[in-house]
């Protein structure tokens, strides 16, 4: 274990290499450019492959190819680039290929700007491309988590043969913080377990990686199997952090960078003996409904919720769906470069 200073972007890149990622393809886009730069510098030393792709489409389809032959593979981009990758992510979900996609969100819609935002929550948590599918979505809140979540992301991808999205934002990507890194590789590529991978058909019948099922009824069967898998993931993989949930009368719900600011607001209010708590979803899909059930079992009706986002009411929908009308839900959101401040959060809570 050693302590170093790194940006969130570099931490994700290093975390991926530590997790056994041996293939990276990407295309330059701000504010995530430190990831491809880090990969270009470090992937060859790790015995892996780095490719600067000619487009976001090429990058995600290279990840498709690398994943198809069993490598731990990853790409990264930011909002407009992630839009371009949706076709490839849909194909990977359909072909059940494990891979990690890092999305360092910026302002939108369109070219938007390069400031931090969380306005691609819907794109990440609903099937962003065509078809009924889900990616597992993890949202780190600070640089250490950006590093620590990478092995978990690759493990989840392999375990469920499913794409995993790390949903960060420009603030997380650009922030530099002290980071504890491991000095010995924690994970290794487990190619031998991937019996479905394309390696050449020596000693076995040929493997086919595909998402195309033309025969009547075949695709429906595949879709039902995918739905079964998603149901399992929803039961098993909900992740969240709860703060002061035991006695809170107001609970803020926020993720990523927004949660970091909300945590500071909660701590300030607690100093004044205000009973405020925080639910920080770490898995955005599956949404951590269990966190709310826990509160519910302790008289949720008296608890008010405040959803805070760097977007205009996206995660708010998941909170409302989860609470199903059983509690009052307030909302505070800004996007396009504006970030709700501690003061804005505190003043909003006072008005609830």
């Amino acid at each position, binding site marked *: 274990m050693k302590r170093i200073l790194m940006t969130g972007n570099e931490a994700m890149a290093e975390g991926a290499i530590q997790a056994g990622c*041996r*293939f990276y*393809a990407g295309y330059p886009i701000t504010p995530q450019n430190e990831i491809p730069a880090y990969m270009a510098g470090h992937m060859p030393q790790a015995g892996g*492959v780095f*490719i600067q*792709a*000619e*487009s976001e*489409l*090429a*990058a995600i*389809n*290279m*990840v*498709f*190819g*690398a994943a*198809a*032959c*069993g*490598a731990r*593979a990853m790409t990264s981009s930011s909002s407009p680039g992630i839009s371009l990758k949706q*076709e*490839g992510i849909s*194909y990977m979900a359909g*072909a059940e290929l494990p891979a990690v996609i890092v999305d360092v969100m910026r302002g939108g819609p369109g070219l938007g700007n390069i400031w931090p935002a969380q306005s691609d929550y819907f794109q990440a948590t609903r099937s962003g491309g065509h078809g009924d599918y889900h990616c597992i979505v993890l949202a780190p809140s600070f640089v250490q988590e950006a590093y620590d979540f990478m092995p978990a992301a690759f493990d989840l991808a392999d375990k469920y043969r499913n794409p995993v999205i790390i949903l960060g934002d420009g603030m997380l990507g650009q922030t530099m913080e002290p980071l504890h890194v491991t000095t010995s590789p924690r994970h290794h590529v487990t190619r031998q377990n991937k019996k479905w991978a*394309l*390696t*050449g*058909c*020596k*000693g076995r019948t*040929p*493997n*086919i*990686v*595909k*998402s*195309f099922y*033309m025969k009547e009824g075949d695709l429906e069967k595949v879709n039902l199997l995918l739905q079964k898998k998603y149901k399992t993931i929803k039961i098993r993989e909900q992740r969240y952090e709860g703060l002061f949930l035991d006695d809170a009368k107001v609970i803020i719900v926020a993720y990523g960078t927004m949660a970091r600011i909300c945590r500071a607001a909660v701590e300030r209010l607690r100093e004044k003996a205000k009973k405020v708590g925080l639910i920080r979803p770490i898995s955005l899909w599956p949404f951590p409904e269990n966190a709310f059930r826990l509160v519910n079992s302790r008289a949720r009706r008296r608890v008010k919720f405040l959803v805070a986002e760097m977007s205009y009411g996206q995660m708010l929908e998941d909170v409302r769906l989860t609470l199903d009308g059983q509690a009052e839900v307030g909302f505070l959101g800004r996007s396009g470069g504006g970030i709700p401040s501690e003061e804005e959060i505190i003043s909003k809570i006072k008005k609830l």
Partner: protein
Amino acid sequence: MGKVFSHSKSLRNISTHYCAGCGHGIAHRLIAEVVDELNIREQVIAVAPVGCAVIAYDYWDFDCSEAAHGRALAVATAIKRVRPQNIVFTYQGDGDLAAIGTNETIHAANRGENLTVIFINNAVYGMTGGQMAPTTLLGQKTATTPQGRKPEEGYPLKISEMLALLAGVKYIERTALSSPQEVMKTKKAIRQAFQNQIDHVGFSLVEILSPCPTYWAMPPRQALDWINNVMAKEFPLGRIK
């Protein structure tokens, strides 16, 4: 009398879905024969396109990946980089390789990826019902050029000649499936393109002029003559690079 011919090991013994007189079946078989002769069946990883040959993996008997429309060479690039010990090829039509996938094609070629590309040029989109392709000839009638292709709809795209300009490209040959003689030349070119990969020569592509009687609205025999007399005038046969 001893056995003088048998079915290719790399080709499953089943009927294809292709139309009567289509060239895909011949091209599939030539690839399978070359793979057998080079004894690389257990090393091959193929990348199938989107287009009429989308289920080529149902016919070949070796490892195969699908690719999104046009992205075969991005997928193949990664497969070859991750597994350089395998023999990786793409099989793509004109729409896949020279329209929606032009970018992936040019850049994989420009990187000089050590890949084999089998490019089927039949001057039309077959799977979707005979629309104009980038390689459709001027005057050729398709579902989307009912009066025949006009220059303002674009000229037949000579992607092989364009690719030949790139330093990363080592071998390009254009052949045809229009006669037994041309079929044998095609097989030789395919063999060369695979041998190049085995010898680490680099990016090798065979463009094959292939009949589509259905969407050329011709009987199969006439389609073969049309390749020789019309199509090969626009797309001259022979070694390009």
